[in-house]
């Protein structure tokens, strides 16, 4: 029976992919992609994941999990499987899988789609599941602790420093996405600003008015958010109010930085917690809405399967298909950040080891599906429109007229009146060079949703999509700044003990300010960069995220090597090898490519030479010094990421070598077997 199902699914996936491949030159319907995804996900879950859980991990339903043994009703709680699934999915799914595929669509829809499908089934889902399993067997230890236990101090230190670095880059790039979406858009800006008092209102409601009524408060909050979207449109038409929200990028960056600082020092219940609830409800609602809308509308993809930019000359970001598509799409295919959630919080809720496959592998499959939907939303736009929105003007010739001429020369015809009509339809002044992926995704989502629910509302849908992404992003920004603050306080506590106290206000303010200053710097430089900053920061984020995935995979590979299933260590070893190859190649190119658009050093030297020769226009010359310094700093960071990744891999290989040559290896500190007392099926 299972074999029949497997064969049918394989045939289905092959048929759908063949449909995509053979129809080259004709528009492809998005349904083919969804069909291929559904078949591949089911194959991966029913066969590969089941085999790993049963044969490699030997997940044992009779073994008591830490949630049961250490049950304290707070963080350790044995929890029903679908509740843990929901918790885990909400924690791993952020704005990343929406942005990466949107940017990677510059290569055409096919490379990104294949990488999302294959990368998740063989890489990302496997990483998430095995890290979750390993942490569940070790009383919910974090990735950093497991790295120290399994590999040694080098691995442990690398995991912690790597986490802090990735957090800074992540927040900076997400902040940049929000700023670019709000720049000179009173509607978007006023709506996004309104989300802050709404979150506080919800916080006060939950705290004082009706304590603990979370669902009730969240529903009120979501209704207010929808009202804010409509209200933003009203503000946009008020000549007296409009100028307040019509801001430069640098002003908005200042607001985002100030907001991040306040969110990190204010009590959790006032801002962070209510925003988190609102964002979760919006996330679930929008994912379902989008999936239903794609199924109903069945849009045709207008983007070609492959574009000319696989040769590395793309306007959105420079660099060839290999390795840059694998760096641009991290979340949705494989995301190292997930290993931090899979160790630490989620394993303390796992009721039985039998649930690890659903929670670890299954949640990541759903995130992969979100990435596929983002790819569809990008690929259904006219390619000319897609490139006009996502490319910085500097990369297309400097002005809208030059941009459409450049795009026409590339075979992606679009006109200025067409872009202006689209902009006024969605209620924006312009859609040219709205880099960062959010506006383009919003246009795509708006066209899907308005295609199903009526086109009169397209401006509302567009700003709903912007609000949705902003709420998502600001939640990550809040939570990330706070986590960074805790990690920094933990580290500073070793220098001077009082600094480590998380409730001592001077230390709270100092460490929050340091974390905010770190990401605020990268955000600011991204905003003043005439190329939009995304082309520099997003690859840096991709490299750091894949580096973290490399660390996580190295840790679990070492665990597999030490256990009974050493001969199966390839299931994490091969994804690790692929990531090491991709990340190293990408980092190498970012460091040493002679092309100033790709290499950081080349970019800095090129700018320095132009500055010295006096050929830069005055507004560029004014910021050139900062940009040159930033490119060199980015190079140093890239080199650091590469070094950390290889330090951990070498540490893992050392374990592998010792194991192969029969030398003793550090023991893998699994907690001892204890039989579960939970009755099968109860509480489920």
């Amino acid at each position, binding site marked *: 029976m299972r074999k029949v199902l497997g064969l049918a699914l394989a045939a289905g996936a092959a048929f759908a992919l063949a449909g995509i491949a053979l129809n080259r030159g004709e528009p492809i319907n998005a349904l083919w992609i969804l069909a291929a995804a559904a078949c591949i996900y089911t194959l991966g879950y029913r066969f590969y994941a089941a085999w790993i859980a049963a044969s490699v991990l030997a997940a044992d339903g009779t073994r008591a999990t830490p949630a049961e043994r250490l049950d304290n*009703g707070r963080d350790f709680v044995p929890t029903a499987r679908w509740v843990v699934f929901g918790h885990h999915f909400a924690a791993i799914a952020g704005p990343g899988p929406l942005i990466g595929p949107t940017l990677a669509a510059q290569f055409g829809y096919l490379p990104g789609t294949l990488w999302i499908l294959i990368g998740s089934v063989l890489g990302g889902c496997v990483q998430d599941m095995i890290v979750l399993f390993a942490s569940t067997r070790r009383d919910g230890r974090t990735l950093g602790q497991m790295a120290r236990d399994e590999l040694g101090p080098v691995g442990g230190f690398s995991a912690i420093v790597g986490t802090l670095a990735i957090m800074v880059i992540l927040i900076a790039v997400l902040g940049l996405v929000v700023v670019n979406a709000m720049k000179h858009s009173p509607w978007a800006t006023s709506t996004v600003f309104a989300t802050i008092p709404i979150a506080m209102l919800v916080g006060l409601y939950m*705290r004082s008015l009706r304590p603990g009524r979370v669902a009730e408060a969240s529903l009120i909050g979501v209704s207010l958010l929808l009202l804010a979207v409509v209200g933003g449109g009203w503000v946009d038409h008020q000549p007296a109010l409009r100028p307040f929200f019509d801001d430069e990028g640098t002003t908005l960056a200042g607001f985002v930085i100030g907001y991040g600082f306040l969110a990190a020092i204010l009590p959790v219940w006032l801002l962070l917690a209510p925003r988190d609830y609102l964002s979760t409800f919006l996330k679930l609602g929008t994912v379902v809405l989008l999936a239903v809308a794609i199924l109903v509308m069945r849009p045709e993809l207008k983007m070609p399967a492959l574009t000319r930019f696989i040769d590395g000359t793309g306007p959105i970001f420079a660099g060839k298909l290999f390795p840059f598509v694998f760096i641009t799409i991290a979340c949705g295919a494989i995301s190292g950040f997930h290993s931090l959630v899979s160790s630490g919080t989620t394993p303390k809720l796992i009721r039985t080891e039998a649930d690890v496959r659903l929670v670890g592998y299954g949640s990541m499959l759903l995130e992969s599906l979100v990435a596929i939907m983002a790819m569809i939303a990008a690929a259904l736009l006219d390619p000319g429109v897609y490139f006009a929105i996502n490319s910085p003007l500097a990369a297309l010739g400097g002005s809208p007229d030059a941009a459409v001429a450049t795009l026409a020369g590339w075979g992606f015809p679009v006109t200025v009146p067409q872009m202006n009509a689209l902009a006024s339809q969605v209620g924006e002044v312009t859609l040219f060079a709205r880099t960062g992926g959010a506006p383009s995704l919003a246009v795509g989502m708006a066209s899907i949703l308005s295609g199903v629910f009526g086109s009169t509302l397209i401006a509302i849908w567009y700003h709903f999509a912007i609000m949705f992404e902003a709420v998502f992003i600001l939640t990550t920004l809040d939570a990330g700044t706070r986590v960074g603050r805790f990690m920094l306080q933990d580290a500073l506590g070793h220098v001077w003990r009082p600094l480590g106290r998380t409730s001592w206000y001077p230390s709270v303010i100092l460490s929050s300010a340091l974390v905010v200053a770190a990401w605020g710097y990268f955000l600011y430089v991204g905003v003043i960069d005439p190329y939009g900053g995304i082309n520099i920061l997003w690859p840096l984020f991709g490299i750091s995220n894949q580096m973290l995935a490399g660390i996580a995979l190295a840790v679990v590979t070492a665990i597999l090597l030490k256990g009974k299933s050493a001969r199966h260590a390839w299931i994490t070893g091969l994804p690790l090898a692929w990531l090491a190859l991709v990340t190293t190649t990408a980092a190498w190119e970012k460091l040493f490519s002679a092309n100033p658009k790709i290499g950081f050093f080349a970019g800095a030297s090129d700018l320095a030479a132009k500055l010295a020769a006096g050929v830069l226009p005055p507004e560029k010359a004014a910021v050139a010094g900062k940009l040159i310094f930033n490119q060199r700093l980015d190079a140093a960071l890239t080199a650091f990421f590469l070094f950390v990744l290889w330090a951990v891999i070498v540490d893992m290989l050392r374990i592998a070598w010792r194991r192969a040559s029969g030398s003793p290896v550090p023991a893998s500190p699994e907690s001892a077997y204890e039989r579960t007392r939970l009755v099968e099926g109860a509480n489920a």
Partner: protein
Amino acid sequence: MRSAAFRRLRAIGTALGDVIRGAAGTDAYARYKEHVLRHHPHEPLLSREEFFRREFSARWEGIRRCC
């Protein structure tokens, strides 16, 4: 046949409800209450309001949100 299909639908509905509760964390108090009743039946049980005030911020101490 019909009742089997109905049971299946109901199971799917329950699972969806669970996913939403887990994602949003709206079940924190219910979980705490169940824990106290099962493991510490003689200890005082915090009211929903008290639990919310005391335990709320702990939810945001670790890495709870991703990229």
